[in-house]
């Protein structure tokens, strides 16, 4: 029997039924926390590292749920569960990349409960940070993961700025590769961000993983039809086949005609504090034949300038090979 030391400290639980009500509550109160599936939040609460005074719980807002056709694409509510995304006929038939990424998140139970929005905006899993160490990201003045003696096998190989943690989202890369947009609400109205701009690194703000500020709510993800039924490639490499976050993942949408790459979007996650869109690689391969030579060039360019930490240099060839496979279109 587990010894439970984890009674969650008390908070006020607020259960709005509309987006307007939710953003009003977030605006009115200090030290609030947005709770969707709760799989990121509960650890913070039980460890008593995050102690919100009030929690805005979103499961009662129907407007945040469901998958709708929008123009030539799809609009997915941020509160839609990962299981619903992975099993949706529309997502599977036209944007299989996202269905595949969603189906490989964690476990069946977590996908049944966890939401697309929660998967996208989840906080990093750096264990120094999650363990409550007072690091830069937690408002302190040191990074415990970046030293030569740190346990940093899972940390980043590029894009570090004081913090070396990585983004753990699987769906983030897929949505960047599909050219998706994130719709964000607050009391002043709605803003729309391109998926690749939605995720930010520590150089911009070391305490946030996304552009979301207190008071903001991610409401929907819009996927345009541009890459519907493109040649998709998804591969997630992880230590355990279940539960685990990616060590490195790659998501690619490639449109070819007569064996030549016409246009492409490629994103890699697990290598930087945010998912990285490989714009240089996309430019390089556009107009080239989808063959081994192109794939090798793409892999080399993708990993140029990587600076591994003490224990994660394996991520350089891993990322290089994943990008190669994506460009070549190997069977994953």
């Amino acid at each position, binding site marked *: 029997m587990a010894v439970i030391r984890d009674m969650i400290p008390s908070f006020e639980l607020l259960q709005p039924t509309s987006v307007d009500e939710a953003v009003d509550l977030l605006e009115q109160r200090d030290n609030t926390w947005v709770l969707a599936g709760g799989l990121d939040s509960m650890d913070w609460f039980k460890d008593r590292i995050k*102690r919100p005074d009030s929690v805005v719980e979103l499961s009662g807002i129907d407007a945040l749920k469901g998958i709708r056709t929008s123009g030539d694409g799809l609009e997915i509510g941020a509160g839609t569960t990962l299981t619903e995304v992975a099993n949706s006929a529309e997502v599977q038939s036209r944007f299989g990349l996202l269905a595949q990424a969603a189906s490989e998140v964690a476990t069946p139970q977590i996908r049944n409960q966890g939401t697309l929005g929660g998967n996208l905006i989840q906080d990093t899993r750096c264990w120094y940070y999650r363990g409550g160490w007072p690091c830069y990201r937690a408002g302190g003045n040191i990074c415990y993961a970046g030293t030569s003696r740190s346990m940093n096998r899972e940390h980043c190989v590029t894009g570090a700025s004081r913090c070396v943690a990585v983004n753990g989202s699987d769906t983030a890369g897929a949505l960047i590769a599909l050219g998706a947009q994130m719709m964000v609400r607050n009391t002043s109205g709605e803003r729309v961000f391109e998926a690749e701009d939605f995720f930010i690194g520590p150089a911009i703000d070391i305490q946030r993983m996304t552009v979301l500020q207190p008071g903001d709510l991610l409401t929907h993800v819009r996927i345009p039809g541009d890459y519907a039924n493109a040649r998709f490639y998804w591969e997630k490499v992880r230590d355990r086949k279940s539960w685990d976050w990616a060590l490195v993942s790659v998501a690619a949408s490639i449109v070819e005609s007569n064996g030549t790459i016409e246009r492409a979007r490629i994103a890699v996650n697990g290598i930087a504090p945010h998912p990285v869109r490989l714009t240089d690689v996309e430019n390089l391969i556009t107009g080239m034949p989808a063959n081994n030579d192109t794939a090798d060039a793409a892999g080399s360019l993708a990993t140029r300038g990587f600076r591994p930490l003490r224990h994660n240099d394996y991520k350089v060839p891993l990322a290089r090979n994943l990008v190669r496979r994506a460009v070549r279109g190997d069977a994953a």
Partner: protein
Amino acid sequence: MSAVEIPFAEARSGPSRRTFIKGVIATGAAVSSSNYLFRTPGALSASTVVRSTLPRMLTLNVNGQTRSVDVLPQETLAMTLRYKLGLTGTKLGCDRAECGACTVMIDGVTHYACSVLTQTVRDRQVTTIEGLESADGTLHPVQQAVIAEGGFQCAFCAPGFIMSMVALVNENPDPTREEAAQALSGNLCRCGDYDKILNSAMRAAEFSRRMA
């Protein structure tokens, strides 16, 4: 222990611990829950207590029964089931959504009860391992299959695995072994008895097909 009474003083006019426990008994909970809930004195009063507008007395639908229970805003479903409703078939292994021992069904879909706030299942149907057998006490085909195959060694993880198996056979009555393994990939067995567990899952599908 007096420190733990602070949150309750908000809702009631300063009850003693004894009157609180009496209240819990009256709502159908096990007495033994008090030890458990109060094992960490100070936990409940650790942060500023904010008055919640939520009803503390909830009506939950558990295993087809309507149960009234006094629930804190921050209370997880696993806590409510085990320590207030006495449904100790649902196990707490890690309390971190990392082991699957607390798997229950909410509206027919498997969830980790350790990571669901009880307040969010007010209008939903909760099914625990205790709710699988039929009214006359006949075990669910999945339970029968587990017995037939001797599926578990220590069986602490069994209730969670069995809930996942029920979800599997409901969704896919004729799974391959690989599909069964996928469906059970959110549950851990520390005895490492996965082969027999998968045998049980395949047998469970067979029994369920025969019953259908």
